[in-house]
């Protein structure tokens, strides 16, 4: 049998996605309500950001627009996780109930097959919101739209997304070993909110944790330094794309290892 290549998987994903969207659109009320919910979530997030900023016009040398840039950057970077890996949230339930077994009988990659089942369109609204914020702050800071900057942005947005996806995969995969793993996934997701802030505002202990244990500093801070502070880019920023790829790969391996040792339930 021919090995399934990238083209094969993209095509399958496209078809599943198209079908999924079609069926979601057919439940119009559901669709509208979740869109409204998404808008409110984003607005409330933004409002709390804004309130915080009215009391501290500058945080550790980061001005309002720079912070806004970080905020937009993190929103955009989180979109792929939200859209593509949302089924991680159900993993624990599938594993616990034994229904996870239904994913194990297809002649395609298990991780892909599992994640392909859910595409969360709410993420697209977040993307629009994030892009708006990003571009607004971008022009206010006056960064310009040179090809180099756009290239840097693309590379580092992907970096950030990979880090976030990796964290979520790894956290979700813990359910193959631990029963109460929901708290882990929940915790990791809560911490990602701190990704919006420059890491320098945290105490050294948290700085260390957010760089090496829960590497949320790679979601927005280190990558955006490359664009925002081109003169003082730390080595970690340049290394972050590599780190992100390695980290994502490790999280994938962990997930697959858990899935392969999955015993199911009786009956």
């Amino acid at each position, binding site marked *: 049998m021919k090995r399934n290549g990238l083209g094969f998987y993209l095509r399958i994903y496209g078809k*599943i996605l198209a*079908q999924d969207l079609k*069926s979601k659109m057919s439940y119009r009320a559901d669709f509208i309500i979740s869109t409204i919910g998404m808008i409110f979530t984003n607005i409330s997030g933004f409002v709390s950001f804004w309130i915080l900023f009215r009391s501290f016009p500058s945080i550790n040398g980061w001005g309002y627009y720079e912070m806004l840039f970080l905020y937009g950057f993190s929103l955009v970077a989180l979109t792929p996780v939200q859209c593509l890996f949302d089924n991680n949230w159900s993993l624990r339930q599938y594993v616990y109930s034994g229904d996870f*077994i239904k994913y194990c009988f*297809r002649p395609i990659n*298990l991780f892909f097959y599992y994640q392909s089942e859910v595409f969360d369109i709410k993420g697209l609204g977040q993307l629009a919101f994030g892009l708006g914020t990003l571009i607004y702050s971008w022009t206010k800071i006056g960064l310009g739209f040179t090809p180099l900057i756009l290239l840097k942005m693309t590379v580092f947005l992907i970096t950030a997304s990979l880090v976030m996806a990796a964290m979520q995969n790894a956290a979700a995969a813990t359910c193959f070993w*631990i029963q109460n793993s929901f708290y882990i996934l929940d915790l990791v997701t809560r911490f990602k909110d701190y990704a919006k802030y420059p890491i320098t505002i945290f105490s050294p202990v948290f700085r260390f944790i957010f760089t090496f244990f829960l590497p949320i500093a790679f979601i927005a801070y280190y990558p955006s330094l490359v664009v925002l502070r081109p003169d003082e880019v730390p080595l970690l920023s340049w290394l972050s794309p590599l780190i992100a790829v390695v980290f994502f790969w490790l999280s994938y391996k962990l997930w697959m290892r858990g899935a392969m040792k999955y015993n199911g339930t009786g*009956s």
Partner: protein
Amino acid sequence: MPAIIEIKDVTKEFKVLNRREGLKGSIKDLFSRDYKTVRAVDSISMSIEQGEIVGYLGPNGAGKSTTIKMMTGVLEPTEGQILVDGAAPYKNRERNAQKIGVVFGQRSQLWWALPLIESFRLLKDIYRISDEQYDGMMKLYGSLVDIEPLLHKPVRQMSLGQRTLSDILAAFLHDPKIVFLDEPTIGLDVSMKAKIRTLIHALNKEKNTTVILTTHDMGDVDALCRRIVIIDKGKMLYDNDIEHLKGFFGSYRTLKIRIDGDMKEIAESIQKELPDFSVSADDEWISVLVDEEKAKVIDVLGRLQSSCKIKDMQLEEISTEEVIKKIYEEGVS
């Protein structure tokens, strides 16, 4: 021709964590794990030829599903060897998946939100089914079941029976060499059961697909299987033709009678009266299994006639249901 499935001395053990109570307990569990070993399958061997329909039977918890999960590559045997079409399933799950179809009763593998036809189209891509083969299969399905009303219905709106039927069709779609059906008729009504049996039978005939079937409904066995394999507590009890098994019970006859009133209730009182024989009832008949080495059927009938008014009667050889029940209770002697 080599066997399509070859199982040799296969054992599967589960390590079950003795969980401790509360938060403190689960933290403790993380560090010191206190395991108990459950032997779900205990050195089983069998060999299955292409095209056979094998009834894989045993009481609850016997280890049937566990064996099937090993053959599908989901579980790794603790000991022993399994070859499915010449390869070890667990070693390459994806490759094995191409050759098999799997249905677990009450656990649909179809895309929940999609109409059946869209699920089929996705499966066509996933299994790389050619247009020709796909069209051929759809035509065959059309001739076997009334598929049209199902095709455009989202799976989540289907009844259990429709969903099971759809799952079976999906499992055969890529023309696999083997299809595993784990309790496919569980929870279905009589007519849906009959439909599904006819379908499985026809697909097996048409495509020469090997079918491994587990069930607690002996009607499935009567309709489909010549060969049965029985396991209990993980150990193999029997592997041969069903007729051969019935031969062990040559002196048994099933006396079936029909009486007015609540059959279940009357059956219970008859059981009390005739403690030596097993009595059961379905919608039509009360069946009494008589061992003619112990009592003549005619005497039993006489005793029954003195206590109730018999409307109708039949005499049959021992039914599959009763054979299996005796095996579960007493083993193969």
